[in-house]
């Protein structure tokens, strides 16, 4: 230890915070879950939901029917369709199994029958495309001239939606897990009791967790956002300072919740159960992977007061919409509220032995 002589290095808060780093970086699993896993998840989701040329819809034409040749030819000209000539029963089977979206059945009378599932959006849209092609082939003319302009806006893709969600989820996980396991493990090993038998300040012990969390947070956010920006061009439209404020406040709130969860638990199993119980509803309801507005109106007030919902909404608004601080007040109030309740409560409940 060459630098053991420096005054700052001997300060208990520095020593306690160093312990936090050492315990974290010497645990490869923890480093993986906090730093690597979110990046892998971003990459996976970004690739799976990347925007490609829309897939061609498969349509079956009953080939035994009269006039099927003409229909096949008409539909074949539409590039968004993939047309198959099938026997009647094979065509119906394919429709039932969902392999084809619609069956076209030309009739002896010259009429054409469409068989499809009107409940499915794909069925309805395919009907429109097929019908337009059939009518055009039958001689129908367009009455109104239309022009088209196709866009692909950054910020409207799934990867843009999901990255703020993953960031929020990561802030939650590292805050709650990072604190819960370390404290309960120290309590189980009677290390907490040993520490309070020294002149150590209890406040400094807890502060070392917050301090290490805040510094690890920088690495976490920079890695995940940096990857998302470089690999997928995910935008950060709002002020970076506001983003920092949201991240820091969120991380503090989740750290306080982690402290609350860990304040009494005596076993690692017990605290894992508690942490999952707290986090599971938020993984589902807080709109990480899909919009929280999909859930019924009746439970929306509950969803809106979950800390992760507020965090994810605030991150999306900052990154994608670029809103200013005044628009974020409701979310910041929810996050700050969780911090203001959890921290004093956990200090009150905390058991050192």
């Amino acid at each position, binding site marked *: 230890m060459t630098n053991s002589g420096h005054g700052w290095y001997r300060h208990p808060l520095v020593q*306690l915070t160093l*312990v936090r780093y050492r*315990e974290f970086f010497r645990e490869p699993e923890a480093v993986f879950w906090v730093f690597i896993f979110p990046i892998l998840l971003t990459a996976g989701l970004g690739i799976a939901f990347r925007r490609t040329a829309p897939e061609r819809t498969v349509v079956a034409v009953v080939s035994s029917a009269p006039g099927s040749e003409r229909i096949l030819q008409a539909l074949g000209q539409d590039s968004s369709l993939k047309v198959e000539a099938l026997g009647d029963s094979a065509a119906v089977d394919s429709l039932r199994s969902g392999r084809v979206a619609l069956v076209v059945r030309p009739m002896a009378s010259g009429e054409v029958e469409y068989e499809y599932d009107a409940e499915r959006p794909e069925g309805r849209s395919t009907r429109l495309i097929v019908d337009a092609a059939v009518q055009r082939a039958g001689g129908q003319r367009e009455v109104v001239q239309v022009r088209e302009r196709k866009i692909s806006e950054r910020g409207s893709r799934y990867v843009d939606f999901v990255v703020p969600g993953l960031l929020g989820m990561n802030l939650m996980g590292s805050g709650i897990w990072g604190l819960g396991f370390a404290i309960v493990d120290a309590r189980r090993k009677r290390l907490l009791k040993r520490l309070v038998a020294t002149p150590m300040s209890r406040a400094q012990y807890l502060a070392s967790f917050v301090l290490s969390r805040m510094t690890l947070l920088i690495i976490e956010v920079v890695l995940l956002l940096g990857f998302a920006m470089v690999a997928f061009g995910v935008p950060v439209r709002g002020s970076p300072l506001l983003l920092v404020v949201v991240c820091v406040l969120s991380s503090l709130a989740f750290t306080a919740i982690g402290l609350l969860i860990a304040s009494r638990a005596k076993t690692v199993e017990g605290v894992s159960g508690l942490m999952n119980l707290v986090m599971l509803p938020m993984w589902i309801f807080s709109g990480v992977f899909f919009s929280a507005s999909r859930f019924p109106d009746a439970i929306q007030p509950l969803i809106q007061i979950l800390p992760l919902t507020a965090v994810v909404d605030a991150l999306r608004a900052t990154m994608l919409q670029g809103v200013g601080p005044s628009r974020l007040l409701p979310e910041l109030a929810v996050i700050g509220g969780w911090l203001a309740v959890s921290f004093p409560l956990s200090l009150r409940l905390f058991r050192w032995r």
Partner: protein
Amino acid sequence: MAPPPSALFVRNLRKAYDDVIAVDGLDLEVLPGECFGLLGPNGAGKTTTIEICEGLTPPDAGEVVVLGRRWGRDDIQLRELLGISLQETQFSEKLTVSETIQLFRSFYRSGPEPEAVIEMVQLQEKAGARVGQLSGGQKQRLALACALVGDPQLLFLDEPTTGLDPQSRRQLWDLIERFRSGGRSILLTTHYMEEAEHLCDRVAIVDHGRVIALGTPRELVASLRAEHVLEFAVSNTEQVDETALAALEGVCSASRRDGSYRLQVEELHLTMPALVAELRRQGAQLSELRTHSASLEDVFVTLTGRHLRDE
């Protein structure tokens, strides 16, 4: 207060957990520079007593004065003056020995350099090793090092050598003796009578939360009035006449427990031939015979009828 002021003074200490009485009116005084041992079986209330003295457990009743100070009033001062080794503390396995000692050193205003403490407990070769890789004896020496980093006036050691092999135990004893020779006071708990005999100036034998005997190890053993203990068993008879045994030459007392007999004997060379003759007279056949010098264990057995460790 009567001079000399004691390092630790405990009077009428009581503590109950739910409906179990752990400490039941215990008195204790540790003099400056003394190594004092609490000897007793598991569950005797030793750990509760020492943790109350360490300020980690509040007592239900009683007076505790540590280095002339009291818990609840002088906590900050006391924490600086005490060195503590708890039973079964596990230090973080991912830290090295030197990192752990540096951490504990940072909590105290004054004390030796971490390197000096590492040398004191002879862990120089393991200074850079992770705590998870240490042997049981090395971990106990690390615990001792963490108790010594603040240069304590009074050292509390709760079962410092439990679970160690004989060699590691001796090594730890040497370290504790070296600390004591520096003039500081020690209170230790143990259920090894050899440990109490080897290390302690005075020993209090504790059972059911009370002190049942107090004195130097020599005084306690002398209280038996017999230097030897003779134990034997017989195979062919149901019972041997105990009064006849007690009347044998050189026997102070005789007792029977679990089919084996126990005689406290002043002069073994006189008792042995008399015992053999008496057994022959009663028609009993010896199946086992053991003798040993009287120890603190025998003091405990005489007082309670039980052994320190139930094997």
